[in-house]
């Protein structure tokens, strides 16, 4: 019986934990006397999506370097970022989100990966903190959550775009490879198949693989036997080089395509040349020659801050600009502009401002529909040429 004491300890620990929480207000005053508000950065920096997550963080940090002061009600506030690592893991994501809420952030940017965003979304909604997704493309992120917005397009859109690409290129036999248990991969694949049925494209093979799979030869051999003209294989950065190189080794010569996750230099590097010719749909294409407005600021800096490429290099990264960094930049900018428009740090006021917001960001015109998704109707298709992603065409869907 005395072992009920166990519970006692729980109580004591609970008590000690109260000390962790504290009375924090949304606006604080820094040591130098400046008034400060915080924007949360909710991104994976480790785990399965750690690589993509950090690229978004760079975009957000860079935007914060450029837009670091906001005027609210006639007073100037310094905007600080508060970063948490959600570890690409849903359980961790809940605590990370709570950490942001406890830090009294006025809004949140992130995350890379939809699962963690969905998990955290319920909490942001409850705390009435508006969140701005960067590259979480799953419909469920914003669906039924009026506090979640995003600057990117959605899974159904990407699948549809790829199908249109196939149609435009006259492919009529395609194959799909998706990852079991992964909402992104299965989602894109599913919408691709649906769009293909509509476009009259024949899906000759549909193969699936397990998470952490490293042997794709078996399913690729089947695909080879079906002899498609195009293979759609939306999957993670870790999987991409394996699929690409094993397909080429088996003598599959058709084009291979995927969604936004594949637009990452590490894939080209890891595939040892097998990535050549692969196509991806993505959010952004840097074009320094024609850049104007926000894009010019992003690419070239604003006088005091150098352009984003230089920033990446200073962080020890390759100088190529990942699309997700541009989205991170836009996400921060949307939040920033909404705070300015709302003239308040109140979550509801910022949310209201976001629904009415319209501006031209790095990745194009940004405004949000009733679900909170950015109104985007075009995706950039890039192809790997000589070890680089080269912009090929803009595919529009109406």
């Amino acid at each position, binding site marked *: 019986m005395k072992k009920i004491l166990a519970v006692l300890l729980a109580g004591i620990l609970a008590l000690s934990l109260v000390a962790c929480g504290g009375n924090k207000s949304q606006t604080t005053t820094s040591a130098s006397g400046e008034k400060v508000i915080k924007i949360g950065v909710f991104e994976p920096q*480790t*785990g*399965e999506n*750690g*690589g993509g997550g950090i690229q978004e963080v760079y975009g957000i940090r860079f935007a914060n370097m450029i837009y670091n002061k906001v005027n609210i009600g006639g007073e100037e506030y310094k905007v600080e970022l508060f970063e948490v690592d959600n570890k*690409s893991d849903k359980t961790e994501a809940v605590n990370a989100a709570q950490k942001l809420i406890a830090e009294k952030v006025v809004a949140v940017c992130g995350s890379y990966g939809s699962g963690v965003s969905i998990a955290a979304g319920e909490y942001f909604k409850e705390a009435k903190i508006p969140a701005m997704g960067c590259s979480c493309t799953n419909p469920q992120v914003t669906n039924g959550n009026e506090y979640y917005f995003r600057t990117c397009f959605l899974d159904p859109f990407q699948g549809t775009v790829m199908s249109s690409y196939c149609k435009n290129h006259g492919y009529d036999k395609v194959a799909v490879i998706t990852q*079991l248990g992964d909402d992104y991969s299965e989602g894109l694949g599913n919408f691709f198949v649906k769009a293909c049925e509509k476009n009259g494209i024949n899906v000759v093979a549909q*193969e*699936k*693989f*397990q998470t*952490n*799979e*490293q*042997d794709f*030869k*078996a*399913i690729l*051999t*089947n695909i*080879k*036997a*079906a002899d498609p003209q195009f293979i759609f294989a939306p999957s993670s*950065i*870790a999987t991409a*080089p*394996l699929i690409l*190189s*094993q397909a*080429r*080794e*088996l*003598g599959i010569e058709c084009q291979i395509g995927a969604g936004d996750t594949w637009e990452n230099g*590490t894939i080209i*590097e*890891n*595939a*040892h040349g097998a990535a050549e010719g692969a196509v991806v749909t993505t959010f952004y294409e840097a074009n320094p020659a024609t850049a104007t407005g926000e894009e010019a600021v992003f690419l070239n800096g604003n006088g005091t801050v150098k352009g984003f490429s230089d920033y990446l290099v200073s962080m020890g990264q390759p100088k190529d600009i990942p699309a997700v960094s541009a989205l991170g930049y836009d996400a921060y900018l949307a939040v920033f502009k909404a705070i300015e428009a709302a003239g308040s740090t109140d979550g509801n006021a910022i949310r209201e401002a976001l629904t009415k917001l319209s501006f031209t960001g790095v990745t194009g015109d940004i405004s949000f529909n009733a679900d909170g998704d950015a109104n985007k109707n075009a995706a950039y298709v890039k192809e790997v040429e000589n070890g680089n992603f080269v912009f090929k065409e803009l595919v529009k869907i109406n």
Partner: protein
Amino acid sequence: MFNVIATISEVASTKATFGFSVIVQHALTGISVGGCYALIAIGYTLVYGILRLINFAHGDIFMVAGYFMIFSFAVMPFPLAIIVTLVATTVLGILIEKFAYSPLRNAPRMSVMISAIGVSYLLQNLATYLFTALPKAYPAIPGLKQVIKIGNISTSLVTILTPIITILLVMLLLWLVNKTKIGMAMRAVSRDYEAASLMGIKLNKTISFTFAIGSVLAAVGSILYFTDRMTVFPYSGSLPGLKCFVAAVFGGIGSIPGALVGGFFIGICETIIKAAGLSTFSDAFTFIVLIVMLLIRPTGLFGEKNIDKV
């Protein structure tokens, strides 16, 4: 072997698109994967034979060997890099035994197992911390990735080389265990280590040697496996590790030829299952094999009859 081919063609016949070349292609894949599995499975079998311990960290040693190769290849010519990788992996294996297992020699078996899980957990987290979770490119050893084409069949040199190297190494190992003094010591220790130590066999030395062999084979397996798959990430050892343990059990834990057969069996079956469009159950199948085998014939195909009770 003929059974396996018969099974392949049985499954294959269910799919109209399957031709002869497809079957050969699948067979090549299965045998190649199986070869790598066999090399790792031997590590499990040796350690289990001697310590009665599932070395949960073995799959992660295999993963770390991948990272060793990446870093050594970056700074030295490849023959040297291979040697460095083999040596470094061996040292790692021996160190793990010294620090994590030998202090628990007389502890309850559960403690040793938890320690093994702990090492596995540590290696994975350490790899994530040091090298990030992103996959790292595995260096291409000159010639090994060369694509060979015969008609409709296309494969790389390493795919064909893997089973050959595996079988050669196993023959070497069998000679070592059966004909040399240290091999005899290993067999004695695995039979009864108390009696063996009374007979003057140096227990710790023999155990270290066993770990060294297991690690070297894991390193060779790692080179063959990752050359074919070209990327390493912190969790790339965990699943192959578990599968290879199953392979070892299937063949009869403690038996080297058993591990070889088990490795090929698991590799080929897995390929058949994936080829039949049942990827969902490819991992599940492995565990079902384990459970069925343990229930029907707990000693495995080639295992010795004496079962210890607890």
